[in-house]
Structure formats: C-alpha cells, structure tokens
C-alpha cells in the first residue's frame, strides 16, 4: 500500500477542488439528476484516491472511471426502463408508463457500443487529446481515430433516421 502523506492529501484536495465541479457537471449532462452525478463523481474520486500513489495521470483516470461508471448507470437504468416498458405492455389499458419517445443526442451516445462510446466521450466531450485517449484505452492512436470516425458516422446516421 502506498502511504498517503500529508503532502499527498494536500495535492489530492487541490485536485478535488479543481476538478470535482467540472467532472460532476460533465457527468450531469450524461445522467438524469444531480444526485446521480454527485454519486458518480464522488465514486470516481474515491477510486482515484485509493490508488493515488500508483497513478501518473490522475485526471485521465478520473474521467476514465467516470465514463465507466456512467456506462454502468446507463445499463442499470436501461434494464429498468425496458422491464417497465414490458410491464406497461401487459397491463392493457392502464396508464402506467409511457416512456418518452423523443430521440436526443445523449440517448444516441448511450446506444453506441462501448468500443466507440468511450473514445467519443473522452475525446469529443472531455477534451483529451487523441494520444491521451489512446493511452487510457490501451489502443493505438490510429485505432482511436478510426473509432472516433465510426462513432460520428453512426451518430449522424442515427440522427438522420430519427427525422425520417
């Protein structure tokens, strides 16, 4: 276990104060409410601080963890919505649940496969350079560029379909 010295704590607190509001705000645009955004941002910082001494680029790690936590959150809520949609289908005539049908960009990003969504969020949304995204994901830069291109193409096509 790496020791967490007073200087580490001061540095961690400085990073927290500098990065938490933006990270939580970043997550907030990907989830439905402030509480979930705070929960995800806090969990990302907890994991960061738990591995503080072994990290070279804490900010990248933060956003990488947050991206994965958002993905997990989407999966949970997605399962729940699908299940409740099924519930509404079996209770014929009951005004139980009618999920919103409007398509927005966030939902389309959510529907991207992990392989494309991660680089898209980290590069386009979090603003990390391709080199950093490649390092975070452990992929060659060329692969990341190709994934980003494919992600944009899919989003463009999906938006086109949603209007058709």
């Amino acid at each position, binding site marked *: *276990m*790496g020791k*967490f010295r007073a200087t580490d*704590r001061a540095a*961690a*607190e400085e990073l*927290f*104060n500098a990065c*938490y*509001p*933006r990270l*939580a*705000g*970043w997550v*907030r*645009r990907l989830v439905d409410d*402030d509480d979930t*955004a*705070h*929960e995800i*941002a*806090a*969990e990302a*910082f*907890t*994991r*960061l*601080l*738990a591995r*503080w001494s072994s990290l070279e680029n804490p900010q990248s790690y933060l956003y990488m963890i947050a991206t994965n936590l958002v993905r997990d959150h989407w999966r*949970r*809520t997605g*399962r*729940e*919505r*699908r*299940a*409740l949609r*099924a*519930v*509404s289908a*079996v*209770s014929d005539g*009951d*005004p*139980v*649940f009618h999920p919103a049908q409007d398509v*927005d*960009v*966030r939902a389309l990003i959510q529907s991207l496969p992990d392989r494309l969504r991660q680089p898209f969020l980290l590069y*386009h*949304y979090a603003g990390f350079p391709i080199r950093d995204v490649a390092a975070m994901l452990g992929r060659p830069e060329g692969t990341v560029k190709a994934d980003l291109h494919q992600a*944009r193409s899919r*989003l*463009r*096509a999906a*938006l*086109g379909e949603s*209007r058709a």
Partner: protein
Amino acid sequence: MPEPHDEVDTWLNVQVKPLLPPPDTFERVSGQARRRRLRRAVLSAASALAVAALAAVVIPRVAFPMQETGRHASAAHVSPTPAASPQHPTPVASSPSTIDASTARPLPATRSDPPPLSVTFVGTSTGWVMGPAGAARQCDRPAAPACMVLQRTDSANTSATSWRTVGAPPARGPSGPSGVSQVRFLNLSDGWAFGPELWATHDGGQTWARIDTGGLRVTALEAMGDRVYSVWARCTGKGPAFASHCTHFFVYSSSASSDAWSPIPVTSSGLNIPHVHSAASLVLTGTSVYLLLPGGHLFASTLTGASLPPLAPLGPVPAPCQPGPAQPSGQPSGALLAASGSDLALVCTGPQAGGGQRKTVYTSSQAGQAWHRTGTAPSPGTATSLAESSSGTLVLATSVGIQVSTDGGATWTAARGARPAGGFAYVGMTTATQGVAVPADPSRRAIWFTHDGGSTWTASRVGA
C-alpha cells in the same frame, strides 16, 4: 433544419455547468479511499500470512524425506520469503485479522443510549437511529408517555462515529394501533416515523406532525426522489404485533416536503386480502415502486414525479412464495424482497427446524414478471431482512449473522466481524460499499456498519 452532425456538435459544445460538491464530500471521499487502501493492505498481508502458513505446513513435509536421504540437508532452510510475498493475493474468507474482536463484547450502555429499533441513512455520513428511552417494554405500554429517542450522526463514514440527540416524534413504542417503531429520512429535512402511527418532520426533527391515517396502520414506508410511499393497512394485531391480522392494504403517497397524502389507484380487483396472517412489503427503486402482497401478488408503479400512475399487477404468475406473518418491524417473515434497478431478489423462507430454515433465493430481471431460482442461502438461523446494493450484491440478515452473495444468490459467504447474540433484525445498503445493520436484540445499544460491500461488519455504539 441543421445538419445531423451539427446537432452532435451543438450538444458537445454546450458549456459544462460545474456542479459544486455537497458539503464534506472530500472528507467522505478521502475516508472511503483510506478504508479501501487499508482493506487492500489487510488482504495483501493476510494473503502473505496464508501463503507463509501454507509454506510452513507444506515445506517440512517435502523437506523431511529429503533430509532423510541426506541429499538436500539444507532444504529445511528454504527461505519462506518468496512464497510469502503477496504476488498472488487471494481472498481470505475468514481471516482472523479482519475481525474486530473488541465488538464481540457487549457495549457499555449510557443513559442516553437508545436501544436501536430502526436506522435510516441519507448518505454515507448522515443517519438517524430511533429507539425507546429506557426499557422497551416500558415504552411500549399503552399508558406510557412519549418515550421515543432519535439520535443523529454526521460521521458514519469515519472510524469515530458520534451521535447527538435530536427531536423525536412525541410517541411511544409500538403497541396495537399506537406508537412508532421505524424511522426513515429522505434528506436532511424530510423524515417520517411510523409503525403503526405516522409522523412527519420537514425540519430535520425539530418539529413533528402526526398524520391522520383514518385508523389504518402504517406497516411500511420508503422515500425516494421527491416522494414518499407507504403501506396503510387495516389490522387488529395487538401489542408489538401491530402489523399482524391485516385484511386490507392501501398504498399512499405524498410529496416529500408536504403532508398531502393520497392513495395510489390500483388497476385490478384491489388489495383486499383474505390472508389475515400475512404482511406486505414495499420496495422502491430509482424509477419504480414494488408492492408484494399476501398471496405473493406483486404490483408495480412508476415513480414519475408529481403524477401517481396506478399500481398494476406484474404478470399472471405470483411470486414463488408468500410474505407470511409480520416481523416486529412490520416486514414479512416469509418472503424478503429487495431490488436493485429492475433486478428483483426474493428470499423465500421455509419453516424453522433445528435452528435452521430453508432459504431459497429467486431473482427476476424482468421486474417480477418471471422468477428464476438461483440458489439457497445457508440454512442456519432465521432470515430477517434482505438488501441489494446498487452493485447487485445481496446481503441477508439472519438470526445468526449476515450472509453475502455477489452472484445473485447462487453462492453465499458469511460476513466477517463480530456478531451480536440473536443476529440481526434489519440490514440495508446505503451505497455499493456502505451498509448498516440493526441487531435483533436492541439492548446491545449498537448498530453495525460495513464499508466493503457487506463482507465485513463492525459494531458502532449509539448514544450521545
């Protein structure tokens, strides 16, 4: 109309609005991180000890014949160091090093220590515990004066949890149609004491108002988002069995910040149940409310803010077991329901025999429309409470301890840490890692916390 890719750019280019952290977030985060580092270190050390112990047992057996042959007389001097290094950390299921031996002793009581009947948390640091002042039997008497005590902590995520007395509802313990036994808070302001009466506060306990339930008894209550839901039942149970002999069940809801309670409509023949010895269970998830009724009928509705969609039955097949008689908390004893997202978990209990009980675990990933038997929990003890953390870990409280399953109930592991005599009456998971349990014997004047997802539990004395 803009081009599609412009719409993506527009979304991407919207300035991220910073969200300031809630008070004490850094302290909470750094405390959790510290515990995780410590846990890793403990596991590594325990792993090293385990491997070293293995080496101590195995090496002499290997070395002995070698010494006999005289070919490797130095074999007994094989350094254990390489084997003891934690290169391959393995989970240590019951390492003594993780047991807090100090909590095995009864915790000393002070006059302001309420024997905890119920506990509620609104985050990892802030929670309340409610119990009777003095002996519970005296507080439960019909003629007893208001005697419930409420205490609050804001340091549950630290190693030195402290409590202070705050305003409690002017009620006594549960006895037939009167008194309260349970407490829930949604946030720092809005809270409720119930079972069987219903009281509400909207100023953190400074003032309480009794809600008129028209003679119905409140047997369950949960709050989420900006609403509170509760089960109101027509019951005739006497004494502490306030939630027994119930024949009619209703679900009422109110905005959390007001006391405007109204019933949620039901889309079937209603909730009038002939099973007079059975209780009902209420579970909330982020988007839905589930109600398990006598007969095993499961109803659900969505949490959609101000509107109140009706409760609809979930498919034609009832749950694989019936709730059964009520426990002292008002919760069913025969079917323990928990949820994480739309994944429901149900522990069906059999009759008690020889200090044990059959505990069959079912899960449903289809919001209760179909159930799958996933396994059985260990038979020793009587199951009392089931919780499912946000990461899907099942935590089962029993009369002999706590069992944990991370695979939907297929396999179970006994939680580490000292156990109170009589086991636990309630368990709840505040987050994926932090949870709280209430002992079955409230006279211990302590509650138990976990900070590692249920694997390890340690006692924390309550009392100002």
